[in-house]
Structures are given as C-alpha cells and as structure tokens.
C-alpha cells in the first residue's frame, strides 16, 4: 500500500506521495509533440511538466482527461495515465474517474470550443457539483484543429472561414460563466508567463473541488497576436489587471491605474491620481469573498471584443464540500449503518415462498 501523506494540501488529499523527488523529464512521454511551431500550447506543456514533480505525488496517480481539439492532445505528451476522449465530454468522463478513485489527481485539458461550445453543459455541471478535478481551459479564441472557424470566445465581428462577413455571436467570458456556474476556484493566466502560470496551477492543484483555470493561449496560425496586449512590453503593464489576494488592485506604468467600486455591484478602472483618497480608494482583492458577485464584477473588467485589458490571477477561491467526497461519504455512511451488503439476502428480499419437492 502506498503512503498517504496527511500533510498534502486539500486538493491532493488521498493521493499517495512519491517516495523520491521527481524531475521534469520523468513526466515527458516518448511521443513526438505535434503542435504547430510557435503554438502557445508548448509553453503550457513545458510549465506543466515542470510543475507536476513539485506536487510530490506519485506519477502513476496523475490522470489527464481531454476532449477534442489542439489542446486535447496534451495527455499524449505526459507520462501519466491519460485519456484523449471525445469532443466536449472530458468533464463528464473525469467526474466518473474522480468519483471512483480518491487516490488520483485528475486534470481536464480542454479548449474554448471543447469546453464552452459542444461541452458547455458538462462544464457548468461539473463546476456546480465541485468535483475534485482541475480544468485547464486553453482559450485561443478560435477553432484551430478544424482550421480557423470562430469560437464561442471570438470577438464580435470576427472574420473567419465560416463568418466571411464577421461573426454576429456574442462571446462568452469564460470566467463570468464559471462564476455563474457556482465555481469555487476560478483563475486566469497567460501561456507566456511561466511563473504566473505555475503559481496558478499550484493553487489549482491544492484546491479541493473543481478548479477552473482559463489560460490565454496564442494560436499563431489562425488567431495570431490575440493576446498581444498582455505580452508586448509596451502595453502589458496597462493590459494586465493583476489579482493578488490581500493587495489593492493597482497596475499600469508606475501604478497609475487601479480598480474601484463603481455603482451597484460594479467595479471600474480609474487613474489613481484622480481618486480623492488615492490608493486607499482602491479595492483590496479578496479571493475568499463568499458572494460571487465580487468576482463576477472583476471578471467584467475583461474586454468583450479585441483584448486590451483583463484581470489576471485568482478571481475566486472559496471552500465548499467536493461532490466526489460527499458521494463516497454516503457509501461509507450506508456501510456503517447497514453493514457491507449481503448479495444473497438482497436478492431474496422479504416476501418469499417455498415450494417443497
């Protein structure tokens, strides 16, 4: 039997710990990576392979489940257990996996089409149930594997192969959607910022329940530079609204910008210099706020169209019992109350008659 370290963070409770320190190479599979050159997925994969050994859990107890799309090839490139499933259904499959096996660290890798279009239903229900699994949503705001149609996060007016006159769809804000679905852990990060990405992944792994992480990921072929504002040294200071728990939300060159309360349940970005109280008027970020309205208001600071500005970091991190824990608890309770089932007595029931020979 493997050792279970009671000192592991909540999200990993029940997963056996590794007997020896691990390194990145152990998590690299023998499969050739086949994403396009320059794809943001490479950066996420490298960060992920580098981060997994830090969890200190047994490699064979990590299970990756993906759907369909470019990002969903992810499990093939990790030497863990993995399933490349079908379009949109990874959260449902991972739910069965997580319920059956409390000793696994379960991860879902999905994209904006997979999670928000064909698989929208499974995503919201997994979030509301708070199954102990981690969802990484690679948002490139385009369909890549089917060669460049608009996605449910593409900006209005997007001209693609399937929308020659521009998309007329209103896009989803994935963070707003997750918060509306009662998610307990909601974060956003960027493919190219390895340090931030790793810190968010770590927090996601440690959270018990469903962790939802939106990763802004560049598609160099069909939607290049969609996140340029967050990467270009000239714009990124004003583009990234950094969310750090316990700190005032202040950003921009020389900290000139900040987030303030603005009317009923709304937040707004203002020049700090224009505020009567200066920094003291800024919102101090509290990811543990019970009311999701605060995190939702934060999520609305994201541009709906072409992205120039968006909050990056952990929007919400609150505790709520995880579905799989509750399901297993009911089984334990039933066995304690009634004893382990006796099959013969079950099928016999209470209302029988006997025919003598």
């Amino acid at each position, binding site marked *: 039997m493997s050792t279970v370290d009671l000192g592991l963070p909540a999200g990993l409770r029940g997963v*056996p710990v590794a007997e020896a320190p691990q390194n990145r190479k152990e998590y690299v*599979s023998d*499969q050739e990576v086949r994403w396009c050159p320059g794809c943001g997925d490479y950066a996420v994969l490298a960060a992920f392979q580098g981060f997994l050994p830090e969890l200190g859990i*047994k*490699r*064979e*107890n990590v*299970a*990756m*489940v993906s759907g*369909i799309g470019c990002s969903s090839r992810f499990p*093939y490139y*990790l*030497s*863990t*257990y*993995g*399933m*490349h*499933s*079908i379009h949109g*259904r990874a959260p*449902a*499959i*991972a*739910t*069965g*996996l*997580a*319920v*059956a*096996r409390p*000793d*696994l660290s379960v991860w879902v890798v999905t994209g904006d089409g997979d999670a928000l279009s064909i698989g929208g*239903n*499974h995503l919201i*229900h997994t979030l509301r149930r708070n199954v102990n699994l981690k969802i990484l949503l690679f948002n490139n705001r385009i369909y890549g594997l089917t060669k460049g149609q608009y996605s449910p996060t593409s900006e209005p007016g997007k001209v693609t192969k399937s929308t020659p006159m521009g998309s007329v769809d209103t896009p989803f804000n994935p963070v707003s959607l997750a918060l509306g679905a009662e998610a307990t852990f909601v974060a956003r990060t960027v493919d190219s910022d390895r340090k931030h990405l790793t810190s968010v992944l770590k927090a996601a792994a440690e959270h018990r329940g469903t962790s939802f992480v939106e990763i802004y990921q560049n598609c160099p072929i069909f939607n290049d530079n969609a996140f340029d504002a967050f990467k270009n040294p000239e714009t990124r200071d004003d583009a990234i609204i950094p969310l750090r728990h316990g700190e005032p939300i202040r950003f921009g060159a020389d900290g000139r910008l900040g987030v303030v309360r603005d009317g009923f349940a709304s937040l707004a970005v203002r020049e700090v210099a224009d505020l009567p109280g200066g920094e003291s008027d800024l919102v101090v970020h509290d990811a543990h706020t019970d009311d999701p309205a605060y995190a939702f208001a934060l999520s609305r600071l994201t541009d709906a169209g072409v992205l120039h500005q968006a909050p990056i970091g952990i929007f919400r991190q609150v505790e709520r019992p995880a579905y799989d824990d509750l*399901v*297993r608890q*009911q*089984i334990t*309770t*039933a*066995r304690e109350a*009634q*004893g382990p*089932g006796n*099959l*013969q007595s*079950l*099928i*016999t*029931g209470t*209302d*029988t*008659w*006997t*025919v*003598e*020979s």
Partner: protein
Amino acid sequence: MTRTVTIEVKQLDRVVIRFAGDSGDGMQLTGDRFTAETASFGNDLSTLPNFPAEIRAPAGTLPGVSSFQLHFADHDILTPGDAPDVLIAMNPAALKANLKDVPRGATVIVDTADFTARNLKRIGYDENPLETGELEAYHVVALNLTGMTVESVKEFGLSRKDASRAKNMYALGLVSWLFQRPVESTITFLETKFAGKPEIRDANIAAFRAGFNFGETAEEFSVRYEVKPAKMASGTYRNISGNLALAYGLVAGAQRAGLPMVLGAYPITPASDVLHELSKLKRFDVTTIQAEDEIAGVGAALGASFAGALGVTTSSGPGISLKSETIGLGVMLELPLVVCDIQRAGPSTGMPTKTEQADLLQVMFGRNGEAPLPVLAAQSPADCFAIAVEATRIAVTYRTPVMVLSDGYLANGSEPWQIPDVETLPVIEPNFTVEPNATGADGKPLYLPYLRDPETLARAWAIPGTPGLDHRIGGLEKEDKTGNISYDPANHDLMIRTRQAKVDGIARSIEPLHVDDPGGAAKVLVLGWGSTYGPIGAGVRRVRAVGGKVAQAHLRHLNPFPANLGDVLRSYDKVLVPEMNLGQLAMLLRSKYLIDVVSYAQVRGMPLGAAELAEVIGNLVEETEGIDDDARQLGAAAAQLTHWDHQEQTEGAR
C-alpha cells in the same frame, strides 16, 4: 348482516384480472398488492402495468386511465393474458377505455360513484351504460365503492376527499375476498407504508378489511373462486419485476467481478426505476450519479471503467441515441461498460410508457465506423437478472461495452422467480495487468496496452495508480499492441478486423441455442428475442394443444449469435420471426444466413397476444404442410382456445 345464500366455491385453473381507474386512483399500487398476495399464495403469475405518460392527466378522462393486468394460474403461464376475465373499473372512463378488451361473459365490477351525467357526457356517453342494457353480455356488479369506503373510514375523521382515496384498498379487499387471496402481507405493507401517518394507515387498513367483509356478507356475489397454487420446481421464490431484476443482476455481476460499480444515468421512462433501485444499494459499493444529461451519464460510467470500476449506464432509446458517440469511444478504448436500453415505443419521444423492441438495429449499428459490440436481450422480467450478470461477464472478460436490451413490458411486468444461490453465479475475473507484459527493443520491460489474450483477444487492462504502466488511450486509431496513435492503412484494417473478431469470438463462450421441439417432427420453427418469449411460448402451446407440430427457440444473445444458429435455421422448412418492430431480427438473419425467414411484425406499443400468435403459427404450420388456404383450421382453432389447460393435461385428454 348475515348471508342468506350459501357461497359456492368454483375452481378455476387460471384468471386474468384487470384493475382500471384514474392515474391518481392508485391502480398500479392496487395491482402490485394483488400480485404480492397472489405470489405468496403460490400461483404462477405474469403482470402487465399500462399507464399514461402524463403523471396526472385530467381526472375522469380517457387519456388519464391507468390499468394493471394480472394473469395467475395453477400451472406455469407465460403471458399476462390477452383478455381479462374480471375488470374492476373505478370510474366511467376506466369502463369505457377497457371494455373493448373484455370478452362477453366476463365479470365487470364498477364503482358507480362517478357515474354522473356530467362525467358520462365528458367521455362521450349520452346515457348511463349501467342503465341502458348495453352491458348485458357481461356479469356487471355495480357498487358505490367510494361511498362505502367513505362510510367505512368515517371514524378516522378524514375529509371526504382523503377518505375516498382509500377506495382502491376497498376494491382490493373485495377482490381479495373473491379470489381467496391471503391478506396479511397487504396489511403489513400498509402498516409500513403509512407508519408516519397513523390516520391514513388506519383508514386504508379499515377500507381494505371493509371491502373484504363486504364480499363475505353482501349478496352481490354468489360465487367465490379458487385458483390452486401452481406446481413449480422446488425452491424458494419471490416475485420480481424486470427493472428490479436488472438492478440486482448488475450488482451481482459487479460483486462476482469484485469491482465497485458506478452507474451514470439520466432519468427516462421506463428505465428510471433501475437508477432508483441502485441508488439504494450504496452498501454494495454502488455509486449512482444522476448526470446532467444522457451523454454525461455514459461518460461518467466510462470514466469509472477507466478507473477500474464497473461502469454502467441505463436508459431508453432516445437516451441511447445520445450516448452513441461515447459508446463508440468505449469500443475504441476496449474498456468494460454495461449499457442498458429499456426500450419504449419510438421513434423520437414516441410513446414513453408503451413497449416496443425496435432499437435492435440502433444498438447493433448505431455508431460511426465499424464499431461492433455484444448485444444481449432478456426474455422475461426475472431473466433480466441473469442477462445483467452475463453482460458483466462479457464486458469485463472481453473489455468491451455490452448492450443489454429490455423493454417497458419486461421493466414493469413481474413474475415469480426461483431465487438463485449466488455462489452458483459465474466468477468474473478482471485480470488487471499489474506488471510489464513485453520487452522493448532496448531490452527494458514494457507495458503494451493493446497486447491481447490469444483466446479472447481481450487487451491488457492496467488501471491508473499501477506503477510503471502509465499509458495514454483515446478515440484516435491505435497502433496494434502499443496503442500509440496510428494512421497506417494496414494497421487500421488489422485493428478493425481484430475488434470484430473479438466480438465474434464471444460466441465460443455462450451456450448453443436450445430448440424446444417435442417429438422432433416440426417443420416450422418460431424464433424470437426479448420480451416476446412469453406470448410466443403461449402461442406455440396453443398450436400444439390442437395437434400442430411446431418448434420454438429464443435468442438471448443477439451479437454474436449462438454458434449453432445457422444450423438450427437450416433444419426447418420455415422459420417464423415474430417481433414488436418491422422485422429487425428478420433482417439480420436474412443478411447473415441467407435464409428467407417469415417476419411477423406488429408495432402497437403492446405485447404480442397469445391468440394472434397461435393463429399465425397455426396457419404457417398448415401452409408448410401443403394445406390450402381455405382448408386451414389449425390457426383458428388454436386462437379460439381460451380456457385451454396446461400442456400435460391437454395431452392427457387427447
């Protein structure tokens, strides 16, 4: 009150009784209780609940009528009966909706309380049929059951509405008296069911007793009936419905495999009761997930199978359509998965509470690509247990999704079941791979997830958490043995043929098809599958009772077929295939064996009738013997056989 006439006790060998009333009148409960009393008395029995999809259609209307038919006998019987000998109609709509099925001379017990001009007009009666003489061909017993019920429970201080709700128990008491049923189990049942509501409990028991005593003391009935216990094989019996037997069979299969079970399901008629039953069985390490939709239900089940549990999903035809893609993934991943299709009348939403067996081709072929999987079908309510165990055996042994077909008739119908000793059930061996099963080119030990057992072609199954055997599988075509992604043309052809060969090879592990052909002189074989077993058997018996020679066989394995099926088909001049679809098994048989079977297809949402089948079989027997159309008698004679006796007696009499 004392009786002035003596009550005659009349012996019957079999009775068909039908309870009918409004959806809210508790007719299903009444039927269930009468069934339990009859089962504990030791009769053989078969039941047919029949109810609308609407939970409470407007009271007193024809669409709102719900009924429960029970056939019980002193011998072994096969169907719930074609026509009732006794109809209990709790209101005018129930009388009108059911009378067409009742043969002349039958007894019709009517609650007259709702026979008001307004109610009658609402369902198209201009005059009260109890007064016009139009029922004179029946033995009508018209009683104010509601009024007598209210009177019998007045001491409990209930409102008239609540008091009248016990009228189903009053009727049950009366009929229990009429057929000399033991009443203790119903009283115990009411005590338990209404334990938390003493006044309701006492009112129901009082109404039940009052109904029984009314039969005893009133003069409406001069005859009581006795149906002696059936001679059944020695053993312990219980009554069981198809859905309950299916739930227990799934648990038994998982237990015999030593695997926890995870059911992912979405509520759908008529499959929901399997979810309900399994959700009560957590102590057997059964997890039930009521998923957000049908796709998530099967997805969670497949995820659980990947984890090393027994994944199960239960649904009906529309849900199976939604699950198809995930089932195809299961075929590709080669993981165990039990998929239960409790068929209902289609297409589309169809008739949710009515039965049909028209999903056969859907479950055989309703996936993209060449995606073969084993298909099993239960032939009676109790057989759902054995079929579920068999499905688990195949799923786990061969690492494949398995389709189990039941239907609305089997799901809700019930019959006595000789309870098996669980130790006699097959032991199912998951044989998880826990060590490397090959050596790589570099000489190092290696795990090949698609390395196969040479006998079963089952792949090596290692579950997450097994050190050194981590691997990735998915819906993309895999390379033989390694399971790596492969687009190689020859490999794809090999894998397609291997998956097919694996399913075909299951035939080596199943019993050959048994043919019932007493005397061995029959030229006609009647071959069925699924819930038509009872009606076909009853039809065949009738034909034999009037001297016809006919053989019968029934398929429980529809993919692969039993290995001897081709030989069986070729040894008869004619093969008749009755089905509740437009000839789906007939199509499969014709294409596989090039034999022009005769299809008898009826799609009415109801089980086939014994009499209609007797006629069809009898005519085919005579046709095969070269008897001209206008000279044929066997079918008509067999169909008209109403109070035919059981086989031994009939043969003794001839």
